[in-house]
Structure formats: structure tokens, C-alpha cells
């Protein structure tokens, strides 16, 4: 069969395939970038939610500690095991420079962290706990707030 | 030429199969996408309402209004006016009218033990249960043998013919099935009459 077209069939096909490949890979790469920024945003949101929740527990415990003598309480909240189902995170409770209680929720792999501060009347014991198995405690003897279990 | 016609069918077939594959992929893909995170959560409103109702019940418990409502009787059952928000109002009705009665609807019921089970009495069940998320809050309080019985539209203390106030223990000291009060004395020997629960469903 002879061809009256200027371009050979094989080249046409090759061009078609090449163009398709370029387009598809371009699509995949940009969607990859989009997904990654999406992931950053969602993980930040999750960390903030967890952080503000921990904050409200600290506040509640602070109030509770003055409601009676030798108050002891533990809450085991239902936080997700991992951020965006793939990254482990830690919750850290510590004292900040101006005497407030600070909490920091951090994921290493994504290199993200959120920090909160709250003024508490009850003492705190600096401690860290891993995501998934979180416990926030109000301990007696001495009366203090900690994460990860009383001594 | 016969070849060309057959080739036409072949092209058509190929096109159709290709289209079918793409459409099925699209349908499958869209079904698999979890759009839950993007839907607007109704929870926030119900949550706020829940906190509001909790505060209302706290205020009512502090001022003893809950107790008076539960012991406000008409014919041995709870007085229909016991939580009314239109004059004449009881203490509980007042708290409700100043807080949630304006922009929400609610049902109030009392759970109480009788014959070893929990029965429910209505305090205000005029509003039918809706088809939307509701917030339920309950409060438990203890009734003692010396708690007074109230009656009438404004739930005033009831007095007997000698002018002494009537207590819940007077109406049911546990001996026989006294019909004078819907509650039941759980223990005649102790000052504890019964622990009851006031339950409010609001939306």
C-alpha cells in the first residue's frame, strides 16, 4: 500500500504515543504536587484539632483539681493513630518561658508542628506521649497535670 | 467493497469498547471517592445547643427548680403546667422561657424507678420528635423523704387539713401501691426516697 500522505505511518504513531505520554505524565506530576499540598493542609488541620482538644482537657483538669481534695482523673481520648493515616505524631507537654503550660503536637516525617499555650493554676509535669495511645492525667500527690500516665 | 464495511463495524466496536472502559472507570472512581470530609458537619450546631441545655439544667438544679417540677402533682401525676413557659410559670418554666424556649423546641421527661424497672413520665412532650439531629441532656437528682409535694398551676406547697406541709414520703411510704404519687419510695427505712433523672431532648 502506498501512502499519499507526507508523513509516514510509523512516525505518526510514534508522535501520537509520545504526545500522549507527555500529557499524561504532566498530568500525573502536577496532580502529585496538588496532592502533596493537600496533604500538608489536611495534616496541619488534624494537628490543630488534636492540639485544641488537648488544650480543652488541660483546662477542664485545671478546674477539676480545685473541686475537691486529692482529685485524680484520667482521660483516654480517641485520637487517630496516625496523621493522614500515615505519619506518626507525638504530643509534648512542657513549661514555657513565661511560666505557662505549652503543648506541641509534632510529626517528624512531615516536619510539621503546632504549639499552644495556656495558663494553668495546677502544676504540670513535663512529659511526652505518642499518638495513638494518648492519655492525659490529673495526678494527686503531688497534684499535677501530665500526659502519658501518672508515676 | 465489503472490506470497508466490515472495517467500519470494527471501528465502531472499538470506539464503543473504549468508551465503555472509560465510563466505567469514571463511575468506579467517583464512587470510591470519600467526600465525607467535604460535607458540612451539622454537629457544631447540635453541640452548641447541647451545651446550652446543660447550662439550663445546671441553673434549674441549683435553684432547686428541678425538684419542685418533679414533685408538682395533679392527680398523682406530674402537673401539666410544671414546666410551662407561659404565665403562670414555675421556676423551671421561667428558666426555660429565658433561655431555650424562644428559639428551640424541646421535650422534657422524667425517668424514675418503679417495680425494679425504669418508667418514664412526661413533663412537657407537646412537641413531636423531629427528623433532624437532636441534643439530649439529662440530670439526676435525689429525692428525700422530707421533700415537699407541690400542686396547682404555680406549684405551691401542698398542705394537709392541719396546715402542715405534705412530703413525698407521706404520699407513698411504700406499704401498698399508693396511687397518690407516680413515684415510688425505693427504701422506706432510709431518708432516700428515690433517685430520678430529668431528660431534655432539644433541637
Amino acid at each position, binding site marked *: 500500500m502506498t501512502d499519499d500522505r507526507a508523513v509516514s505511518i510509523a512516525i505518526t504513531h510514534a508522535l501520537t504515543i509520545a504526545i500522549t505520554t507527555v500529557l499524561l505524565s504532566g*498530568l*500525573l506530576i502536577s496532580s502529585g504536587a496538588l*496532592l502533596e499540598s*493537600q496533604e500538608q493542609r*489536611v495534616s496541619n488541620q*488534624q494537628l490543630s*484539632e488534636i492540639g485544641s*482538644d488537648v488544650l*480543652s482537657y488541660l483546662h*477542664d483538669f485545671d478546674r*477539676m483539681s480545685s*473541686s*475537691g*481534695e*486529692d*482529685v*485524680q*482523673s*484520667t482521660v*483516654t*481520648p480517641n*485520637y*487517630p493513630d496516625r496523621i*493522614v*493515616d500515615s505519619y506518626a505524631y507525638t504530643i509534648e507537654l512542657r513549661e514555657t518561658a513565661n511560666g505557662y503550660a505549652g503543648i506541641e503536637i509534632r510529626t517528624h516525617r512531615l516536619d510539621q508542628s503546632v504549639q499552644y499555650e495556656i495558663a494553668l493554676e495546677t502544676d504540670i509535669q513535663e512529659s511526652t506521649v505518642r499518638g495513638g495511645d494518648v492519655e492525659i492525667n490529673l495526678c494527686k500527690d503531688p497534684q499535677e497535670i501530665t500526659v502519658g500516665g501518672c508515676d | 467493497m465489503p*472490506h470497508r464495511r466490515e*472495517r467500519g463495524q*470494527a*471501528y465502531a466496536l*472499538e470506539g464503543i469498547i*473504549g*468508551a465503555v*472502559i*472509560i465510563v466505567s*472507570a*469514571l463511575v*468506579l*472512581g467517583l464512587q*470510591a*471517592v*470519600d467526600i*465525607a*470530609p467535604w460535607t458540612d*458537619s451539622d*454537629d457544631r450546631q447540635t453541640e452548641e445547643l*447541647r451545651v446550652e441545655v446543660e447550662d439550663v439544667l*445546671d441553673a434549674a438544679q441549683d435553684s432547686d427548680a428541678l425538684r419542685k417540677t418533679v414533685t408538682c402533682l395533679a392527680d398523682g401525676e406530674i402537673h401539666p403546667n410544671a414546666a410551662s413557659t407561659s404565665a403562670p410559670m414555675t421556676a423551671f418554666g421561667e428558666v426555660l422561657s429565658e433561655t431555650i424556649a424562644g428559639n428551640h423546641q424541646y421535650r422534657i421527661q422524667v425517668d424514675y*424507678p418503679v417495680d425494679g424497672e*425504669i418508667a418514664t413520665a412526661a413533663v412537657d412532650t407537646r412537641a413531636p420528635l423531629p427528623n433532624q439531629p437532636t441534643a439530649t441532656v*439529662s*440530670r*439526676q437528682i*435525689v429525692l428525700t*423523704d*422530707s*421533700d415537699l409535694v407541690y400542686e396547682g398551676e404555680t406549684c405551691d406547697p401542698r398542705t394537709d387539713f392541719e396546715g402542715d406541709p405534705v412530703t413525698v414520703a407521706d404520699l407513698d411510704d411504700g406499704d401498698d401501691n399508693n396511687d397518690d404519687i407516680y413515684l415510688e419510695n425505693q*427504701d422506706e427505712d432510709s*431518708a*432516700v426516697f428515690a*433517685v430520678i433523672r430529668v431528660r431534655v431532648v432539644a433541637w
Partner: protein
Amino acid sequence: MVRSRSAAGSRSGERGQLILIAAIVVAAAILGGVVLLNTIHSSPDVSAQTDAQSVSDADRTTAGIHSDLGDLFMASGTDETGFPVPYADEDEFGDEVDEYSEQYTELISTNRSAIASVELVDWTEGTVAYSNESSDEFVDNEQNPIIEDADALPRLHMSFEDYEGGDLTVVISSGTNIEFEFTENHVEYDVQATNIVCDGNPREVDLVYGAGYIETDESYCVVELPDLGSTDVNFDLPNDEPDGQYAVSGENVGDCADPCETGEIVNPEFELIYQDPSVSFESELKLFKRGER
């Protein structure tokens, strides 16, 4: 001539199954995109919302129990004397608290998966002096002091129907004297060299360990007395006694004026336990604490 006929072949260019392959590739791209999208956009709505309730639930429940225990305590006094008097019998009150705890837990378990239990674990002994006529004379016997030599006053409660009559003076002496003067139109007292006046016809006085309020028909005044040591309470009555009631309790008291009960509980201490799937709570709680009721 025999030609091979392939179903989707074309003679004018061996494009093979190009369209079919392209369709498959696009489908694969769509599915791949969906899979990638699903793995990363998990719900930012952490189920923390429901849990944030559990601690405040525990808080409200224990506050409700505290209130109930107060009512139980007063009812215990009423059982013995016919009056709402803040004291309870050592033997009986413990049983009543157990009964309450049992009924409470039984009822709460029908509504949520939680248990709450209360137990009487300790108490301060003392004496309570009260009026035993429902609305007649204020003090039955003109004996003074009403309470003598108390370590502290857990409760001091007076209420008047409509104060009429002369001036009533209540003297709380402990080192220095604090005199409350009740007249038909005000209540006046001195504390730490400051003179405080509460205007209006007196209705109610309620102090818990020296802190509380005075209520008149016009105003509501906060009272904060300094910490008293060994205390006596004296009533100085006018001839035309006002109508009303009083109940004064004292810790570890030496002597009191009838009608009064001695050697009973004036401030009980409880152990409170609350537990539900995500929160556990334990606390020791005194019924009366300075400034709280």
C-alpha cells in the same frame, strides 16, 4: 487473495488497537488518581468532638452528686429533728449515702455506660444548735452562748419571715468580737475595723466557715469573715423576738444551748468515683468548704 481479517485492524495504517489502548490508559489514569486522592485526604474532623464532652460530663456529674449529697445531709437532719438542720447521725448517714450511691449508679447505667459511686469516708464531729418551732420564737430558751468553744463554724444559717421587732445581735467571739446587728431596715457589722452595712429588711444569712451572704428584701451582700479560732456564738435578743429560724453548727464543741444535738457529723467527707469508657475520676470531697455551698 486471502486477506487476514482482524476484527479491529485497518488497512490504511497499522494503528493496531490504538483507541482501545488509549482508553485503557485513560481509565488507569483516572483510577490511579482516585486511589492517590483517597489516601491523602482523610477527614480532618477528628472524632475528638464526642470525647471533649466526656470530661465536662464527669465534671457536671460530680457537681450534681455534690449537690445531692448536700440535700441528703440536710434531709438526714430533718429526719431526726423535723427541721432542715445541717447535721447527720454517724451510724445512719453512711447507710443513706450507700443507698444513694447504689440507686444513682443503677439509674445512670440505663442512660450511658458510666458508673458513679460515693462513699462516706470521714467526717468532722460537732454540735448543732437550732430553733425547733417552725415559725414561732427565734430561740426557745434564752440560754447563752448558743454554741460555746467551737473550733470552727461549718454552717451558720438564719432566716426571717418578715423581720419585725427590736434589734437582734449575734455575737461571734473568738479573740475579737464580731457583732451582727439586725434591725428592721438593715444589718450592720464590723470586721477588721471596717463597718459594713447591708440595707433592707433582713431575710436570710448563710455562712459556710465564715464566708457567705446576707440577703435582705433590697440587697444581697457578700460576707467574708476572717478565720476564727476557738469560737463562741451568742444571741442577744430583744424582748419582742423576731419570727424566724436558725441553725448553727460548730466543730468539736464544748457546750451548746438547747435545743441542740451533740456528737454528730457536721461536715462529712466523701470519696467520689466516676468512670466511663474514656474518663476516670476519683476525688475526696468535703461537703462544706469555706465559701462554697
